[in-house]
């Protein structure tokens, strides 16, 4: 780890100011991604601005329209929230399947979406449920937020403050974990939303994507059989020592089928 200046502001405004002032400032939430990157000397920020002191960013609010989760809320708290489990059970289940116990008790939803790891779980939920990312500057629809591999719509120093998920009449997430890292090798989130069925895939491509053909099939008939014959093209999907693009493409269909069945 290289040396850096450390800040622990108490408000979002102070945090934003601290990042702005730094020559190369980095926000830190749970640090589950950032700290290993620093330890391996893959990043060399001048300043690290720790959001752990900003208590406003922690918490879960549930009302009739949906669930809003503060950026600093830990995966474990989403997983164990009775309110989330009632409103969008698939979301609580997804959070409970992230990483391991230690990671779930440090990693945050804000850090996860800001990082936009192609194998992260949350992005699938955001896109399938049509969530909105709120920052200190604006509101961004999930589909506009996730741009590409580790790339988001966030501007330099812009801070994710919360994520709002509308409820869905049906939803489920099926994850095929990478055998080594247990991140999503393929994760499919299906939801019956107010604007119709949505199918979002993480892990398989450079970033989360929707499968329109499956959504159309589900609009005709919400059943596992409806997606069973919808194949996604392997072209453009990730390929590594754990899974070829063809295998990932195949798993998208299998996981989609299982997700629809689980959603009931």
């Amino acid at each position: 780890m290289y040396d850096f200046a450390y800040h622990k502001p108490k408000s979002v405004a102070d945090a934003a100011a601290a990042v702005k002032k730094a020559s190369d400032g980095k926000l830190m939430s749970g640090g589950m991604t950032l700290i290993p990157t620093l330890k391996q000397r893959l990043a060399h920020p001048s300043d690290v601005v720790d959001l752990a002191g900003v208590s406003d960013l922690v918490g879960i609010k549930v009302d009739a329209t949906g669930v809003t989760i503060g950026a600093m809320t830990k995966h474990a708290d989403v997983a164990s929230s009775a309110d989330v489990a009632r409103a969008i059970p698939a979301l609580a289940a997804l959070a409970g399947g992230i990483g391991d116990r230690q990671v779930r008790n440090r990693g945050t939803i804000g850090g996860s979406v800001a990082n936009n790891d192609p194998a992260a779980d949350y992005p699938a939920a955001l896109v399938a449920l049509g969530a909105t990312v709120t920052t200190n500057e604006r509101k961004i629809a999930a589909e506009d937020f996730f741009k590409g591999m580790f790339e988001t719509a966030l501007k330099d120093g812009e801070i994710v403050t919360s994520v709002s998920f509308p409820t869905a009449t049906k939803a489920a997430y099926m994850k095929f974990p990478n055998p080594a890292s247990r991140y999503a090798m393929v994760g499919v989130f299906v939801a019956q939303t107010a604007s119709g069925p949505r199918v979002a895939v993480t892990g398989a491509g450079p970033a989360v994507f929707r499968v329109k053909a499956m959504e159309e099939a589900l609009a005709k008939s919400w059943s596992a059989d409806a997606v069973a014959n919808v194949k996604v093209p392997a072209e453009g999907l990730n390929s590594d020592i754990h899974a070829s693009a063809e295998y990932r493409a195949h798993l998208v269909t299998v996981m989609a089928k299982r997700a629809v069945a689980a959603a009931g």
Partner: protein
Amino acid sequence: MSNVSKIGDRVHRKEDRRFLTGTGRYVDDLQLSRCTHAHFLRSPHAHARIKGIDTSKAAASAGVVAVFTGKDTADAKVGGLICGWVVKDKHGVPHKAPGHPAIALDTVRHVGDTVAMVIADTAANARDAADKIEVDYEVLPAIVDLTKALSAGAPQVHSDVPGNLCYDWELGDKAAVDAAFAKAAHVTKIDVVNNRLIPNAMEPRAAAAEYDRGTGNYTLHTTSQNPHVTRLVLSAFVLGIPEHKLRVIAPDVGGGFGSKIFIYAEETLCVWAAGKVGRSIKWTADRSESFMTDAHGRDHVTHAEIAMDKDGKFTGFRIDTIANMGAYLSTFATAVPTYLYGTLLAGQYTTPAIHVNVRAAFTHTTPVDAYRGAGRPEATYLVESIVSKAAREIGVDPAELRKRNFIAPTAFPYQTPVALTYDSGNYVPIIDEAMKLSDYAGFGARQSAAKAKGKLRGIGISSYIEACGLAPSAVVGSLGAGVGQWESAQLRFNPTGNVQVLTGSHSHGQGHETTFAQIVSDKLGVPMDQIEVVHGDTSQVPFGMGTYGSRSLAVGGSAIMKAADKIIAKGKKIAAHLMEAAEADIVFENGTFKVSGTDKNVPLAQAVFAAYVPHNYPIDKVEPGMDENAFYDPSNFTYPSGTQICEVEIDPDTGVVEIVHFVAVDDFGNIVNPMVVEGQVHGGIAQGVGQALMEAAAYDNATGQLLSGSYMDYTMPRADDLPSFTLGYKTTPCPHNPLGVKGCGEAGAIAAPAAVMNAVRDALAQVGAQDRIEMPATPQRVWAAINAR
């Protein structure tokens, strides 16, 4: 007496208290005064020429004490790292032993090869300075693909090893094998890859070296499985520091699995440099360094054929293997695919003619050496895979085919056609017990039920033999070993009656502190809490050979038994004097000397006290003191055997293999502590399952980069990957050691890969894919096998 333990008791481990409460003492825990820290600059390339190296900026960096390159160690005449086992090829010519400098001179030969050593006041400063070293590399083509390493035109790893061939070795009677094949009723052929594994001990390797200018003494604290061997090699071959001026201490060590047997560049350099800079130096590998530089395991490609007569009796077995040595020869690398592999290819069977040819190849990869089982898992995987394949081909149940070919219990000692003489065993009751525990008979119904759910169920058998308890020194010497393989023990009683048991073997997870104490408690009647097992310090314990090859109890435990016999013999003389009886009338029972036929007695503690306070003592016949040494050199290897049966269920949609049931029935000879043995078997099976389904060191063929260089990409088996194991035992005591024990540390890892893979193949046979799968049978590979056309 308070807590005397007996052999066979399920005693809780004495060492667990400190391990579980975080009070173990590992190398990195040491606080040395004025300590400096080393960082090693590693090659980012698999193969490159070092055209120039500029350390000036690093040397001027904050806190830097010294920077050393290969030129410095060459100028100082630091010897190269050695390989301690000479394997002679087909023509009697010793293996090629290319130079292995601790710091690369002008060429780097694998990713992670050592390029420079930086010593600074803190670890961070050392690392900062290393970043400032400028190395001018000319990147050269690399060969990492073992199947191509021996082909014409492959990039050469060492200019003095033409064609990358380290040796071309054979064992067995080729003519007899050819004759058997000429008459065969059926021949089964197989090609297998034994995947390369990365050891992943929980504690990374570490070294802390001290130099005392006043006395000229060096002390090395290091993560070693055999501190005396480390001292011997560093003294006699590499650094030239006399043995009596070098103390090596291996304190608590967090796992080794073989990888901490070897003598590596880092501890060598820390010792040398501590003398150079006159300050203590500490180094602990980070996990990435462990992945790149701990000696890897396995890595074979093999073609084999087995001949049978019309009744399915094996008549001949021929094997052709290429074994990967990596870029340099690690300490015992040459022995693993030869004497620890070729000699085991008879398995549990009476196959009369066997011939094995092994070619060892250099590649631009991390050196390969012994890893839990070392050669024997490779042999077992091959033998048990081909036997199950043969059974399928000739339409005989695989358990039945094994039984037809087992060595009969009356045939021991049994001379195999590949050099070993098996001392004991009784294989049919073992497989019968395993079949009972796995409900082998009910498998068909379970397979049908699975099929109805769309799943593919399979069952697989692995009946292993291993040669462990390394080893009769004369035998290993005749095979090329550079060391003897006896073990030492010392029982050092204190005047107050408690005892230190000093052993030359070393515990890094095996539980010696409990098991060895149990032997002494049982034999001498001393309570467990009065016994302290001491190991790992060359200045405290007699010269010993360390722990590997499932040898500690069979060889080290036997040395303790011998020392205990000497204690009893001496105690009898003292007790006879104290009771005014004839020595011949003294018997020793439950910790007490008795005059037989009377109620006169002297407890051992009283005899010990008399030996240290010899006021009333037979001083003309017996020396004072109660401190006995023993060395034990076994007369043969020990031969644990067993059968594992694994049952799997495959989800054909995803290729995921689930282990639904796992049975292991072992013959370990007598068992000292069943709980410790279970722990060893469980851990071994987990590693074997890891090899079969998950683990693989993957190199990029084009660049030679290690693709599985972290836990993001290297799959370790985890608890939730494994079922609860069902274990059973059948015992034939080892006839040639005083405890009748055989060794249990490696068996799980030796047998499990074949059990799992035979189950996977059995499941895949339902869709005709049984011959399309290699280890590790990852979901992607299983799915691809099912869907290949």
